[in-house]
């Protein structure tokens, strides 16, 4: 390093530090310093007021450490900050209700807690939390109902599609294909949570080949309905006829029955009494739906033969919006940041829907994805990015961690 630059930055550092010290003074008073060493976990005070408690962690030890807040049974972890590396200074915020707790560290993040010390939180139990519980319960109830409504919608649509396809009524089946998929695409992350169901229902040929499983479901049917011409290529550049031939009537019947069976199973699973979703499932589901769009739909790989990607695109966006809507009130209950985040997400949903509307609607039909130019796709992609960035903050915001 050049000496002159070094000297310059050192001088500047002093100045920067002094200034920022002033700016930050008020905040610093709130934070509770925690000195983490390999064999110690010194929390500078042992009491705090209920609410958001900030711990200012500093690991002066030799290896990675972890800071934990345990309930009074010394077992339940009510808050933790993992991966505090040697030399690192990092703030950790825990939402603590009044009560008795313990603080501890965990050297190398394994084994027994080190430096276990009691920690008391005093003051009023936050009233917000009761409301939040209500909002949280409501979000789960709302989203569960949505998932169930969509699988209920899906069943008869799939039956109709399967019947037409099995009977060789390709014209009817082609007309039904895109709209039948809509309820499924709206709740796809939920279906994906059931391990092997989504692969059976919705795998593309290239995915099935890569995973070495039998290729069944919507996209198998799609390729029969929009059969490739000699010389056409799959989305991975392979010959479309490699290990593929149009289904025989018997095979069609089998694929049709299989799809109905798997969708029925999905419906039974989500309507079972013990089925539920967590808040994070809902919020992460919204994020996952946008990821689906960004990864598969924007590139036109999802509905390779039918070109009906925009139906899936719209359905994913609708499903994400419902999931967002379910947790929106909760996000807004988290203060200004939450309110602003919700407003921003809402605005970006509107912009994305407007962009999609230029190409049709679920009711009137969408143009074939092949008709979009690269510039059109980029404009959609930009808008997906614009929504996905704030949406990716949603889980953290509603969980308050």
């Amino acid at each position, binding site marked *: *390093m*050049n000496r*002159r*630059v070094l000297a*310059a*930055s*050192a*001088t*500047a*550092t*002093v*100045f*920067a*530090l*002094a*200034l*920022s*010290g*002033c*700016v*930050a*003074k008020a*905040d*610093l008073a709130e934070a509770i310093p925690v000195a983490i060493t390999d064999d110690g976990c010194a929390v500078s005070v042992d009491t705090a007021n209920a609410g958001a408690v900030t711990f200012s962690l500093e690991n002066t030890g030799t290896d990675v450490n972890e800071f934990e807040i345990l309930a009074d049974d010394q077992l339940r972890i009510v808050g933790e900050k*993992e*991966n505090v590396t040697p030399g*690192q*200074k*990092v*703030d950790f915020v825990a939402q603590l209700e009044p009560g008795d707790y313990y603080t501890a560290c965990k050297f190398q993040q394994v084994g027994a807690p080190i430096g276990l010390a009691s920690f008391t939180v005093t003051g009023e139990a936050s009233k917000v939390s009761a409301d939040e519980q209500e909002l949280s319960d409501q979000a789960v109830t709302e989203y569960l109902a949505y998932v169930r409504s969509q699988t209920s919608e899906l069943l008869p649509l799939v039956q109709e599609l399967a019947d037409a396809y099995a009977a060789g009524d390709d014209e009817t089946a082609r007309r039904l294909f895109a709209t039948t998929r809509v309820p499924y695409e709206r709740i796809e992350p939920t279906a994906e949570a059931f391990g092997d169901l989504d692969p059976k229902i919705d795998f593309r040929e290239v995915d099935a080949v890569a995973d070495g499983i039998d290729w069944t479901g919507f996209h198998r049917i799609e390729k029969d309905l929009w059969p490739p011409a000699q010389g056409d290529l799959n989305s991975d550049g392979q010959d479309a006829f490699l290990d593929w031939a149009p289904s025989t009537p018997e095979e069609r019947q089998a694929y049709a029955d299989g799809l109905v069976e798997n969708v029925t199973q999905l419906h039974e699973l989500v309507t079972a009494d013990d089925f539920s979703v967590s808040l*994070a499932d809902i919020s992460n589901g919204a994020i996952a739906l946008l990821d689906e769009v960004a990864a598969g739909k924007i590139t036109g790989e999802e509905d390779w033969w039918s070109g009906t990607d925009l139906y899936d695109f719209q359905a994913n966006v609708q499903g994400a919006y419902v999931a967002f809507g379910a947790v929106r009130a909760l996000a807004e209950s988290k203060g200004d*940041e939450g309110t*602003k*985040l919700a*407003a*921003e997400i809402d605005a*970006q949903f509107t*912009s994305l829907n407007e962009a999609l509307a230029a190409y049709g609607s679920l009711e009137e039909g969408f143009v074939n994805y092949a008709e979009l130019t690269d510039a059109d796709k*980029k404009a959609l*992609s*930009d*808008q997906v*990015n*614009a*929504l*996905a*960035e*704030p949406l*990716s*903050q949603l*889980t*953290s*915001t509603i*969980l308050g*961690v």
Partner: protein
Amino acid sequence: MTRPAAPEQPEQAAADSESGVSRRHLLGLFGAGAAGAAVGVAAGAAGVGVAMSTGAANASGSGAASAYPFYGEHQAGIVTPAQDRLHFAAFDVSTTIDRDGLIGLLRDWTDAAARLTQGLEVSEGGAVGGSDYAPPADTGEALGLPASGLTITFGFGPGLFADADGVDRFGLAARRPASLEPLPRFQGDALQPERSGGDLCIQACADDPQVAVHAIRNLSRIAFGRASLRWSQLGFGRTSSTSTTQQTPRNLFGFKDGTANIKAEETADVSEQVWVAASDEPAWLAGGSYLVARRIRMIIENWDRVQLGEQEMLVGRSKGSGAPMSGGTEFTEPDFEAEGPTGATLIDTNSHVKLAHPTVNGGMRMLRRGYNFVDGNDELGRLDAGLFFLSFQRSPEQFITVQRSLAADGLNEYLKHVGSAIFAVPGGIRSGEYVGQALFA
């Protein structure tokens, strides 16, 4: 001011400061990030009263750990000794944002750049210090790497002042510099729209490619929803020296490039030829410059079959030493009158060095800051290689004059200009300001 004021690394200083810009403010989702001000203080201090570190990172590569001041009279990354690596990006501003949205973006970019150029994450604890339930604010690939001489330089394209349909989207049309127009067509142009133009640009230069890419990647991410990448270019080796302390590097023709470039130490020429003066129009651009970017494809497979003597004749310099064909050493002034035994001038009339020379271009010079690139290969199996030409000048006229003069350049047979863009580069940024603030005043 109760805190100890001793740590020696800038990293520590900013880690201590409570200046963390929340990711959301950086995103500018909720209006121009107010929290950015604190960052400005921390990083801004690094620039206050510190002279430009001209010559700091002297020879190539030796400045890996250096941090250049972000704030100053001029933007860094122009007379700063050319770093080894480049990531350059041009952006289109989204149709969904207005003037305030644009200002918010520039503010967020400025705040992030102030930190990144000091070797810091995009926000405090941005890479791994945040919530387990939120994506990290910083993408993380520069963790543990020094500043590596990173400079981030912003520019404004013609599209910012009026879009393709002539619409004045941001109320800036009246402030457009008269000469900020798409460049005229030149001999050898084969421009591709997708590699040309742009409303905004960011030049990130560093001695470590990962650091330069990290900067563009994070600044692009901050812009999502407000501006999107139009085109971008990596450069792996500088082709110009911008300081007398630097060795002259070679371009992909194998010749030393930038021998006669304007150097930071030539302060009179820098003032005369590079910076827009306060007396120039428009006033908001004072202390700034005009940036021309050209992606120049070199047909190197053909070039490599050219005899050494002809290569030297076309360039007008010795391939080994870089000395002009009229004799002397690298830095000897070319003598265009000197004749050889046959009576012909030693330096060919149509040689590159002659046609580009100030004496045939009305004294016009530029500060060149180009980079070599190789972006894989084309469909014919030829390397997609060339020179990503960057020049800074007080007026676009300087580039236009020289480029027109080069119409007769024998090298053109081996060159194809496939990308072109021009930007007005605002003057330096003071702590607490955002880049180009004077334009919006």
